[in-house]
Structures are given as C-alpha cells and as structure tokens.
C-alpha cells in the first residue's frame, strides 16, 4: 500500500496536467516565418549546411533545402517546433497530387505542400535516397 497511493495520485496529476494543457490549447503547430529561418535551422546540421535553393511549405509547416553538393535537408514539423534531417539512402519520397511531397526517414516523416516545383524537388530528393552511403 505504501507506494501505491502516491503513485496513483501522481498518475492522476499527470493525466490532469495533460488534460489542462490540451484544454488551454497547447496544440499549435510550428510555422516557419521565412526562408531565412529554415536556412538557419538547416545550418545546425553536422558540418553546416549552406542552402542554394529553398522551398517552404505553403503554410510554413516545413521546408526543403538543397546545397551546392546536391544534398537535401528537410525541416520537418514536430509539434510547435521543427527537426532537421539530411536526406540519405533509406529515405522514401513520393508526390501526392501535383504539389505535395511526402518524405519519410528512419525517425521522421512529413508532408509538405510546395506547389508545382514538387516534381523537381522529388527528383533531387530521390537522387539522395539512391546515392551511395
């Protein structure tokens, strides 16, 4: 009994706090302000990342960036923030409709609405998916 009641009360408190966070509306998705923000985030990749081309999701929910070597960085949404990943062999990508690109890697996935450039970006992404490790 000694540890059961405090544990039960703690579980109750955890559930109540999660419920309160939801009720207060802490479920907002992050939005990139502009290209520069996406480029700054991508620069945190090991060795840095200097983008020569960037495309933002139409609602700012992510971005794709390409550097001079053809590497592709993905700025993918994660809750109110973003994670940054370099596309590598093993990633998968496809076009949905005409202007949505869907990408999935070992620990992240995202769907970005980037307009008519989607097919060009898909080609660039697929080159990295298939390039030797």
């Amino acid at each position, binding site marked *: 009994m000694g*540890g059961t009641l*405090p*544990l039960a009360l*703690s*579980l109750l*408190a*955890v559930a*109540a*706090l*999660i419920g*309160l*966070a*939801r009720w*207060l*509306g*802490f*479920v*907002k998705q*992050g939005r990139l302000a502009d290209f520069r923000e996406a480029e700054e985030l991508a620069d*945190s990749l*090991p*060795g*840095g990342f200097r983008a020569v081309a960037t495309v933002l999701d139409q609602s700012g929910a992510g971005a794709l960036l390409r550097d001079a070597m053809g590497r592709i960085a993905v700025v*993918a949404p*994660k*809750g*109110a*923030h*973003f*994670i*940054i*990943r370099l596309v590598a062999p093993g990633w998968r990508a496809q076009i949905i409709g005409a202007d949505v690109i869907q990408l999935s*890697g*070992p*620990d*992240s996935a995202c769907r970005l609405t980037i307009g008519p450039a989607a097919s060009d970006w898909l080609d660039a992404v697929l080159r990295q998916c298939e390039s030797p490790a």
Partner: protein
Amino acid sequence: MMGFDPIPYAIPAFVLLIVAEMVWARATARHGAYEVRDTAVSLGLGLGSVVAGALAAGAVAATLDAAHQVALWRIGWQWWSWPLCFVADDLAYYWLHRAGHRVRWFWASHVNHHSSQHYNLSTALRQTWTGFIAVSFVFRLPLALVGFEPAMILACAGINLVYQFWIHTEAIGRMPRWFEAVMNTPTHHRVHHATNSAYLDRNFAVTFIVWDRLFGTFMAEEPERPIRYGIVHQLGSFNLFQAVFHEWRAMARDVIAAPWRHKLGYLWREPGWSHDGSRETSDMLRQRHARKADNQQSP
C-alpha cells in the same frame, strides 16, 4: 538506513506551479510555451524517474554506507554539517552534471532531460531513468569517504534536485543582481538548455552558479541571441521510450560498428565525437560558428 527525501513533499507544489505557468502562458499568448505531447513525455519521464529512483535507492544507499564505513573522519549529525554537506553535494553535483555533458556514457543517461524543445516547469521533471545504470552515484562517494552521513548526503541531493525545479521557466527574466551572482537562476539555466553553438556546454551548476564562474564554464544569457532549446540532433518523435533510451541505443550501435581501437572512444569521449571526424562535438560546433561570425564581420 532511513533518510529524509524531500521530493515526495515537493510534488504537490510542482503540480500547482505547472498549472500556474500554463495559465500564465495562455494569458500572455505564449502559445509555444507548452505542447501537450511534449508535456506528456516530460511528466512520464518524471514519474518513471521516481519509480527508477525507488528501485535503485537501496543499492545506492548501501554503496554510500560501505564508503562511509572506511571514511577518513566521522562528521556526524552536528547542525553545521548540514550546510557543509549541502555545499559539498552541490560541488559533486556540478561535476556529475559536467560529466553528464562531456562524457557520452553519462550523457546517454542525462540527455532525456534536454530532449524537450520547450523550456517550462514540466521540463524540470524530465529526469533520467537510467542514472543507476550509468553509475552516476559514484560522484557522491567522495562525500561519504570524507565522513558525511549517507542519509544526510541523500537528503541534500534531494534538496538540490528540488531547487532545480523553479529555474526551468521563461516566466522569470532576471533575479536581483546579488542573487544572480551566487545562485543558479532561470536566466543562467536557460543558457544551459540552449542548442545555440555559443551556449553549448555552459552553466552546469545546480544550486550555486559560483562553480561555473570558478571553473570557467559560465556564460550569461545574451538578449541578442534568442535561445533554441533541446539537443543538437532533435528527437524525431514524442515517444517516451525513445526519449529514455535513444542515446543508449545509438551509443551501442556506434560501439559495435567502430574499429576495435576506437570502441571505447564512443563511451568516454564527448557526445558528437567520432573516430573519422564525420560528426561534431560541442567544441567543434562552437568553433565553426565563431569562424562564421568572424567571416561575416570581416570585409
């Protein structure tokens, strides 16, 4: 050995203060201050750490007791030994914390405390489940060997842990100057949780910031350098178990894949170290960004 553990008594206050901070964030339109899934992971880690701590408590206490048996002195329970023990524990905690960032073995256990991209009071509860596996308690053995009572050491460690709660917030800007000079505060600890290169591996203090000032690891928060929180390679999901074990798994993968003469390096070198130089440590990141800043300034 039965000791005083302040943490169970502090939990109701933790809950009320998190509620107050959420209400403040909502009232001031800081919609990114909390994220419900992130909060769930933080609270799950906190709850799990209490269970893990309870499971390991007997072994930790027995180890401290064994060290105390061969202590140089017997300090006992005199009133003055309490503040002395608290300061000594805080110093031990500083080095434990510093090792937690500079040695990958300890980082694997500590990283979950940093894996939130938010900085709020629930982040304070992101405590490790694997501290016992990492043998982090060895940093407190010198206190028992010097002669402090094991129960007193554990009580001081608990008080130190409770102190850390309130500094995990953006709701408090700066405290009075005299307080900022001596004590760890929200502004000092925000720097510690930053992923900005300039801020990496700074402000390891727990209660007294003087240790960072003394050992050269202090950095003040700079208004022109907005903080990004989390870890350099941010987690890709809100999975609780991924948060707990991801670095242990990554470390095991690296050790298995590394050539024999480099295997140990993946355990005891700093996070980000690699034998082929393909990754970046915090020192390398800081140097790269310093060079970039220099290049931008030079004509």
